[in-house]
């Protein structure tokens, strides 16, 4: 039966609550559980999942709502105790941290008068307003939040550009500024390669590969996935490129994006040709045939990293960077013909789909429907970080539950030959993904064996040796579970292709001079120059766990424990706005 518990004025952010929900759901005797703040939107979700109860009517946006379907009422106390323990553990760990936390912009600015960057991870519908406040305080904005309307993004970016500020995002998952990892990011060595990218895991893959290949990163600037759309017109990308062009630590510039709209692409390319620094451009999905002037074009994330390293060392760029792939011998049943890719990283999924489509010589292999990025000839690549899998659930980089479910399903399918997946280490991600995925992998492989099939697992492990999770340990744990672990997504995919006897070759690219000389670049604004010249001073608005990577890098951060204004009460929000705008008559 359904039991409802309302904890009044007990705000927790949604990520914590989703983790708590999983924790509670796993308790014995619990069929189903949902723990959310009592916002109207969340109540709808409860309604949709059949967990709505009348008691929820009374709950407000600052009240924690716990709805549990459990056997018998006697479990309830035990469950409540587990909830309290989970939450208090958290408060112990937060109370021990030395980070100052505040509840308003006003105090945040007071506590950190030198702040120059706001990290915003509030619910999407509030993100634009908070980012605008950040800009008004003269702060650059890093917007982790997603679901912001395009016109809001455009408005913010135009305003920022006019003020000489940078808006990274929305939906910006990663960034590295002067070695300080932001949100989902890795601890990489310092170096002369600067990155601007419209893709989160793409930046993570390139920066970690550069790190492990012996290079280093000056900055990695995320732009948000829609920056190069026609609607936004690459405002952040252009300002980011100018920032890196001006930045003395940066000697090589890497640009990563999905193939942009034609005019946007031309605008960006024109800018790149006008730079005095060498550039590697990756428009993932395009298969470039040549390099032009000092603008080198890559096909994969790994190739991007390799060209950047060579440019950084001042070594001449090779026509092709083919890595020899050793195909492990496999024994498959005749019906085992398909590759099942279960990805947490969107760009990594897209890269896998691109390579497989290329090998299969599919005309239009890449799709974007119901979480699939490829579904052809029995092969499929799923992006488990897609909205359709993350509604009310944590991202698969944080929580393994969705992926474990998919591993079970894929393993039960007799046509599956290889399960391909990515593991992204770094801040923000799971503490020990190998330990939680390994048992599921072991179980799936054993089950297939019982049914007389060999099932193979290949993983791309993205991260650095400096990351909070040990790269070597994670690799060892996966290998012990029978997983073939590759150090780049490109190699992982090609290994799978080789196992399936599919072949693909890298076409050598010729080098031709740039066409017309481009106009010289405009200088970056003073504020952007300052942002890139030393470690940022951050106001973290929202998810408190994002402060860890910043404090551990020796940078300053103030935690703003954000809550919706007036608990989300629209009428009071309006009244507050009116009062704040009010002018007494002279």
């Amino acid at each position, binding site marked *: 039966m359904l039991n409802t518990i309302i904890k009044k004025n007990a705000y927790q952010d949604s990520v914590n609550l989703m983790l708590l929900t999983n924790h509670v759901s796993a308790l014995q005797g619990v069929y189903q559980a949902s723990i959310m703040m009592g916002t109207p939107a969340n109540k709808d979700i409860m309604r949709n999942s059949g967990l709505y109860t009348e008691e929820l009517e009374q709950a407000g946006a600052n009240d924690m709502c716990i709805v549990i379907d459990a056997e018998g009422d006697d479990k309830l106390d035990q469950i409540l105790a587990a909830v309290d323990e989970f939450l208090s553990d958290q408060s112990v760990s937060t109370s021990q941290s030395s980070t100052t936390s505040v509840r308003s912009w006003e*105090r945040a600015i007071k506590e950190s008068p030198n702040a120059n960057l706001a990290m915003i991870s509030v619910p999407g519908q509030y993100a634009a307003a908070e980012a605008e406040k950040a800009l008004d305080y003269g702060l650059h904005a890093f917007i982790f939040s997603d679901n912001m309307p395009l016109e809001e993004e455009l408005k913010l970016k135009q305003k920022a550009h006019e003020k000489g500020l940078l808006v990274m995002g929305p939906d910006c998952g990663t960034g590295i500024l002067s070695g300080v990892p932001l949100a989902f990011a890795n601890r990489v060595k310092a170096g002369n390669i600067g990155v601007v990218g419209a893709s989160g895991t793409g930046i993570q893959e390139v920066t970690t590969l550069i790190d492990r290949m012996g290079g280093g990163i000056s900055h990695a600037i995320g732009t948000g996935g829609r920056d190069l759309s026609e609607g936004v017109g690459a405002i952040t990308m252009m300002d980011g490129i100018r920032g890196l062009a001006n930045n003395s630590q940066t000697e090589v510039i890497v640009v990563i994006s999905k193939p942009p709209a034609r005019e946007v692409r031309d605008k960006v390319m024109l800018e790149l040709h006008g730079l005095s620094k060498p550039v590697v451009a990756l428009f993932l999905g395009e298969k470039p045939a040549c390099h032009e002037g000092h603008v080198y074009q890559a096909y994969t994330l790994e190739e991007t990293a390799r060209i950047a390293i060579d440019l950084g060392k001042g070594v001449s760029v090779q026509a092709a960077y083919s890595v020899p792939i050793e195909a492990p011998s496999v024994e498959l049943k005749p019906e085992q013909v398909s590759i099942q890719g279960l990805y947490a990283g969107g760009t990594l999924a897209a890269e896998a789909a691109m390579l497989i489509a290329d090998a299969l010589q599919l005309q239009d292999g890449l799709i974007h429907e119901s979480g699939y990025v490829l579904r052809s000839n029995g092969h499929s690549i799923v992006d488990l970080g897609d909205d359709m899998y993350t509604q009310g659930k944590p991202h698969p980089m944080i929580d393994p539950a969705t992926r474990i479910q998919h591993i079970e399903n894929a393993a039960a399918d007799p046509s599956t030959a290889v399960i391909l997946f990515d593991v992204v280490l770094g801040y923000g991600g799971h503490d020990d993904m190998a330990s939680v995925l390994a048992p599921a992998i072991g179980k799936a492989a054993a089950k297939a064996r019982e049914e007389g099939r060999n099932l193979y697992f290949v993983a791309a492990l993205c991260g650095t040796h400096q990351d909070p999770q040990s790269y070597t340990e994670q690799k060892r744990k996966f290998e012990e579970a029978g997983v073939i672990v590759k150090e780049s997504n490109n190699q992982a995919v090609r290994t799978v292709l080789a196992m399936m006897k599919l072949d693909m070759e890298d076409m050598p690219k010729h080098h031709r001079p740039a066409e017309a000389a481009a106009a010289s670049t405009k200088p970056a604004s003073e504020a952007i120059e300052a942002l890139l010249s030393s470690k940022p001073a951050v106001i973290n608005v929202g998810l408190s766990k994002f402060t860890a990577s910043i404090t551990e890098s020796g940078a300053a951060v103030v935690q703003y424990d954000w*809550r919706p204004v*007036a608990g989300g009460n629209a009428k009071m929000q309006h009244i*507050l706005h009116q009062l704040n705008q*009010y*002018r007494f008559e002279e």
Partner: protein
Amino acid sequence: MKMKTIDDANKAVIDKIVGAAPFLVDVVPAHTVIPELEEKALLHAGPPIAYQDMTGPMQGSCVGAVLFEGWAEDEAEARSMLEGGKITFIPCHHVKAVGPMGGITSGHMPVFVVQNRSEGNEAYCIMNEGIGKVLRFGAYSEEVINRLTWMKDVLGPTLSRALQSTKDGLNLNVMIAKAITMGDEFHQRNIAASLVFLKEISPYIASLDMDKQDMQSVIKFLADTDQFFLNIMMAASKAVMDGARMMEAGTVVTAMCRNGKDFGIRISGMGDQWFSAPVNTPQGLFFTGYSQEDANPDIGDSAITETFGVGGMAMIAAPGVTRFVGAGGFQDALATSNEMVEISIDQNPNFTVPTWDFRGICLGIDARKVVETGITPVINTGIAHKEPGVGQIGAGTVRPPVECFEKALEAYAAKLGLV
């Protein structure tokens, strides 16, 4: 000063709080300064309430006050008078007064007179009776009435004469500033301020020409009553906040009080109007034998101290009582005070807190900030038994309902023609 925005208005209000100069000048029978008490009338704590809506302790206090005034021979007669509507009820706040817990004040009870010399206004509060069986918690036994009579006949007149001989009265800002550095927050803990008061007043008492035994009993009472200064602090806070709200604009909270049923607040821009919502019940630690179940809902005018910026708003000043009021220790006290900064307009440089790096106490609760953040003020409070006469059963903290602040803002927005 030219006032353009609500922030400017609020600044003008808090400037009056900072500039206030409260002096304790006298102790007099209540009816001499509150003419309403010449009739058969009683003052009570909180926003207006009818006798039948009062919780047990406040009703018990009423019975005690009727007996004390000699309006009835016994409890039964007193109750029938009260139930029969023979007694007029007035909120303390409506007559420049404040009263702890039940707040029941009758004409012949002695009250402190505090003058705010910056604005020329006065405020009154009855004297603290000590702990145990006391009127403010609803007790009305013979012991209680006898003590009240002694306070009327001996304690009040003695303190009055002693204060007269100081010529200027006692400068309360100085005493408050001293005691805050000695670990008082002036709501849950007043022992330092009470001792400072005793230190200031005893030379004057000693030089009075009076009965030796009476003198001894007065000194002993003052020495025994740790919370004696609380009622002086309440009158001082009332005098300061009433002075500040002469500036009738803005969103500064100028009063917070509870009658056991409703929590009422006033804001500077809305003058005398109350904005009420049902009170919460305090949470805290209980004396042996009592539990949360026995607790009376939130009651008393003592939250005027939090309105001024002490009490729960200055939790960090009194590490000694943070455990007693249910908080988890020094770090929690620090977190509480830091949280209170979020809803305050500024910090009062007159009263700096050593345990808070000498930051000033919270200054001016802004109702807008309360509504915006959802952070409500923390109030330290004694907890009364819900049955009359049992008295105090514990102490803890309580918060006002946010609806009071929402209603106040809504009304102010309407007054300004914004909605």
